[in-house]
């Protein structure tokens, strides 16, 4: 499996992507480049195309036109969802999606990067190194004490974290996080902000979020989407002062 070529600095390239559903243009000639190691926030009103953008990157939706590349060489429009996940793109859903009938430990174990074909999976054994890695991830997401509990019994915020932990276990290069702090307490939100900021650099993060305070807290660079295309792009201050953004999104 070829690695991801980030020699030109960019890890995700979207060029002139268009997607329409029954005549509704969810994405309209959208172009976007994300650099390796960045923590990028994407904001925009409902229907701006944020989730569709994630669908295109993770292979769930095929664009009608345009190109989507992971690094210089990997054409995302030609790969299936599991293949894209395997190449190193992890995705967290808006609604936390974990394996509720499995323990917290098993959730991370299942997500962990390894040979994920049927036969190797049947005969997989967890060695002590892998076990330690899982424990380290549980520590990072503050769920060590919950290792043996069923994931379905966790609180909403804990499930959000567990899902983030599962992404980390996949050892991705790029993390797509769809409203990762929705339903979290203030305390949990604060810890999440710290976590994401600490992950940036080693990983590339794209965070879609409605919570503007949270975005202001973590964002290095903000992209504003509107009606399926990029409306503005830059630092939080820059974006907040942009006339077009004020008009359509901040509603002032």
């Amino acid at each position, binding site marked *: 499996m070829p690695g991801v070529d980030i020699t030109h600095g960019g890890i995700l390239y979207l060029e002139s992507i268009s997607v329409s559903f029954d005549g509704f243009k969810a994405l309209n000639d959208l172009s976007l480049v994300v650099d390796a190691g960045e923590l990028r926030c994407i904001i925009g009103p409902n229907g701006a195309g944020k989730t569709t953008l994630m669908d295109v990157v993770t292979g769930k939706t095929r664009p009608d036109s345009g190109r989507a590349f992971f690094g210089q060489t990997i054409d995302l429009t030609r790969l299936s969802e*599991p293949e894209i996940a395997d190449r190193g793109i992890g995705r967290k859903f808006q609604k936390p999606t974990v394996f509720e*009938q*499995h*323990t917290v*430990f098993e959730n991370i174990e299942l997500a962990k990067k390894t040979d994920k074909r*049927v036969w190797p999976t*049947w005969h997989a054994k967890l060695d002590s190194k892998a076990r330690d890695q899982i424990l380290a991830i549980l520590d990072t997401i503050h769920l060590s004490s919950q290792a*043996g509990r069923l994931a379905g019994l966790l609180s909403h915020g804990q499930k959000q974290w567990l899902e983030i932990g599962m992404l980390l276990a996949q050892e991705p290069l790029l993390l797509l996080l769809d409203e990762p702090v929705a339903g979290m307490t203030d305390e949990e939100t604060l810890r999440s902000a710290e976590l994401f900021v600490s992950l940036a650099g080693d990983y590339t993060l794209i965070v879609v979020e409605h919570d503007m305070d949270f975005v202001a807290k973590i964002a290095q660079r903000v992209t504003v989407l509107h009606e399926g295309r990029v409306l503005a792009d830059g630092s939080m201050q820059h974006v907040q002062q942009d006339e077009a953004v004020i008009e359509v999104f901040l509603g002032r």
Partner: protein
Amino acid sequence: MASEFIRARAPAHAISALPIAARWWSGSAWGWMGVAALTLFVLVPAGNLLVPQGHMLHVSDYTVTLAGKILCYAIVALAMDLIWGYTGILSLGHGLFFALGGYAMGMYLMRSIGRDGVSGSDLPDFMVFLDWKAYPWYWSFTDQFWYAALLVVLVPGVLAFVFGYFAFRSRIKGVYFSIITQALTYAFMLLFFRNDTGFGGNNGFTDFKRILGFPIAAPETRVALFMLTGAALGGFLLLGRAIVSSKLGRVLTAIRDAETRVMFSGYNPVYFKLFIWTLSAIICGIAGALYVPQVGIINPSEMSPANSIEIAIWTAVGGRGTLIGPIFGAVAVNLGKSWFTVALPEYWLYVLGLLFIVVTLYLPRGLAGPLSRKTS
């Protein structure tokens, strides 16, 4: 591995939350296996062959056959559980795989009749009545037991693989998948009802004389088939346990509970579903092959949609997602059926329907639900 680790490390309250499947095998489960093995291989054979007729402990030929038949159903329920209980895919066509395995074995048994049929011909009676002069090509080699045994595995296996590949690749799920499997078994039933298909039309295959040279109705043969069925059930139970207690089993239940997350975790659900679906079909085919020599008949009514629905009921009554539950479910429902269809035949379907409703409403985890709560 992981669960042992958690037991050692996690606080006591966490252990009680371990999945049911893990607990079924702790301690007493092996004791139950021992009791079952003793009944299968010692008590029933001795009671039938050694204890004289009329004695209190005598086990009649009828009972041996009934028990063997129910064990075949239990194998089917176990196969159904792997695909429905663990992977969340409800098949309403498993009767088809069972019947195909049965027909493959039936072809061999028909060839073994030789010239002892009513017509005295080399051909089976139904072909003589159709005025056929030779076996059709697809009956070639079916006089060889090894070849018939191969067909028992391959025919249901290949059909399930091909059907499953297209269904799973097209992401057909839930009730749509169930309806298509129901239509599939119905279509095959209509096909097998036709005399021209070459499988005896609506009469199917019957009047078998011998299997591997042994007279098929002899008590010794029946007991041997019964024990073989019991051994097969035990073997498939161990295979099922090896699957559900492995990481593969955890991926399967993960597909049941959150398939998109499985996909975005880098597993391709198509191949996992295809594996367990094909395996489940093959197990059903083997159960059908064990069923036919014991019951002495196979006909297209085995492919009727109602039969496949009954399989789902056994599994639901016993308890989806536990290995032992569906086996008990198949035994309990079929014992009930045997009793009711003799004592109160016109009420059986009502009782079956009522049972299904009561279990769905009050015992969503089947009979195994309250049992496993007691042991925890």
